[in-house]
């Protein structure tokens, strides 16, 4: 429905800044095959951003936006932090309200969209940092899971407060010396993926953004499951290279190190049995659809 509205008025088309002309012609709204591989070939849903050079968050943003199953029917809810400087540049409606209340805002939003568009699947996705998700907003994060709210929560875990200059956060690893942890953090990294599982999330994944294929798959899973079953949670390691003293080029290495065996971000995925069955079925459908599409393309080429 809304994809028809992403169209420029003919009479004023030539005035529209080219970034919009490009977006309407070249972006992947409505494309069922959209995914991270479109990056660089299609118009991305994110313009220039104001993150630090080399920040893994920027690539995480691009993977996520490229992999949304239906960006034309998706609304994001963000929170205060580095991500809130990126969101104005994103071509999907998004809300910034306060710090920590993102899952509460998303609860109201999802329900309102359900009331207003009962026949359209409107995806709501929360995307916030670890301070917002785990510290100041933990109550709202968890309560939305308890209530079984049908949206996806994504946490960009950089293990500290980056936007305010590198203070201790609940997701920081124990012993790390940071602002407000002058003698090293005294308690363990909060085990939010496990908490999510116990709090009613039907699908939980914890990973880095070093492998785009995996990010894409996890995001699609989470959104599809949220539509059908209820809350889903993704925790992505997006290290703050600035605050952990790395160079712009070292983000990827940091992520790879941390997901190696014994690392803090070894890929973890949890789902209920029902969800496992559902995703298997979805994968099969997807395979058939792609096969059919390929065949049709071949036939068309022949003709």
């Amino acid at each position, binding site marked *: 429905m809304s994809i028809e*509205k992403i169209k420029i*008025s003919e009479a004023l088309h030539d005035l529209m800044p080219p970034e919009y002309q490009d977006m309407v012609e070249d972006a992947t709204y409505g494309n069922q095959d959209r995914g991270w591989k479109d990056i660089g070939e299609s118009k991305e849903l994110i313009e220039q951003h104001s993150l630090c050079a080399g920040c893994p968050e920027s690539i995480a943003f691009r993977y996520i936006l490229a992999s949304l199953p239906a960006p034309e029917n998706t609304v994001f809810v963000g929170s205060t932090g580095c991500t809130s400087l990126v969101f104005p540049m994103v071509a999907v409606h998004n809300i910034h309200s306060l710090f920590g209340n993102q899952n509460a805002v998303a609860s109201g939003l999802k329900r309102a969209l359900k009331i207003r568009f009962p026949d359209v699947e409107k995806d709501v996705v929360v995307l916030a940092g670890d301070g917002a998700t785990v510290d100041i907003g933990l109550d709202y994060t968890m309560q939305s899971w308890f209530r079984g709210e049908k949206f996806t929560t994504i946490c960009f875990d950089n293990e500290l407060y980056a936007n305010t200059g590198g203070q201790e956060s609940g997701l920081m690893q124990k012993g790390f010396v940071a602002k407000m942890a002058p003698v090293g953090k005294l308690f363990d990294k909060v085990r939010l993926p496990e908490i999510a599982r116990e709090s009613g999330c039907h699908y939980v994944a914890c990973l880095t953004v070093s492998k785009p294929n995996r990010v894409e798959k996890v995001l699609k899973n989470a959104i599809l499951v949220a539509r059908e079953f209820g809350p889903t949670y993704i925790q992505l390691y997006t290290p703050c290279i600035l605050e952990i003293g790395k160079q712009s080029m070292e983000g990827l290495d940091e992520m790879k190190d941390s997901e190696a065996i014994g690392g803090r971000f070894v890929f973890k995925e949890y789902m209920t049995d029902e969800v496992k069955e559902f995703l298997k079925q979805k994968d099969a459908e997807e395979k058939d659809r792609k096969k059919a599409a390929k065949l049709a393309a071949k036939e068309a080429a022949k003709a």
Partner: protein
Amino acid sequence: MSDYKVVPGPEAFLPPAAAMMGIELPDPGEGHIEGRIVPEDEAIEHAARKFLGAKVPTIFPGPQILWHWNESAAIKAACVREMAEILPARLIPMADYRPKYPKINPEVEINPNHPNLTIWHNKIDVCLFVGVHCHQANLALKIIRGGTSCYTMAACGMSGHEDACLTIRDVHEDTLRKLTACIKKLKAEGVKSQAEPFEQFRFSREDRKPAYLT
């Protein structure tokens, strides 16, 4: 009775909102000129004369008509285009409201967070807001009154704007056509456009291709 007048600035370091100075919005069928409530027709004629008397008359179309998100939007866009061609006037879009990064190009766009860059750069002396969401229009109108001498006009689909020097409200296709007709009539009566010669800026996607691709 407020004696405040909504006239071109530069007014103040931080100009007040006209509504806080006692200026009220017109009722349906009315407009306001500098805060004075008048019949809609009078406001329309005043707007036409202001436009024709301007050196750099400019229309700022906003997202509500730049996007073909409903049929009426597309029709209004055509009406605005026609008006710009008949005047003639520059068309500079306010495509969105985000704080744009890293910079805007004041020749070809206007941003509500810093509209004066565009007004100053193009030496715009009379402008019309149309199709801009009311909240962002008011932000921009107030900032323009604060820092420029531009005469601002607002064609609003809702209740109008007291922060503009002139407003008409409940604007739909016919209202825009009425304004265009009024411009035509005045021209026929011998009122000459004072607009300096210019070429309408046009974007095409070709313009943006890096040199090595052309």
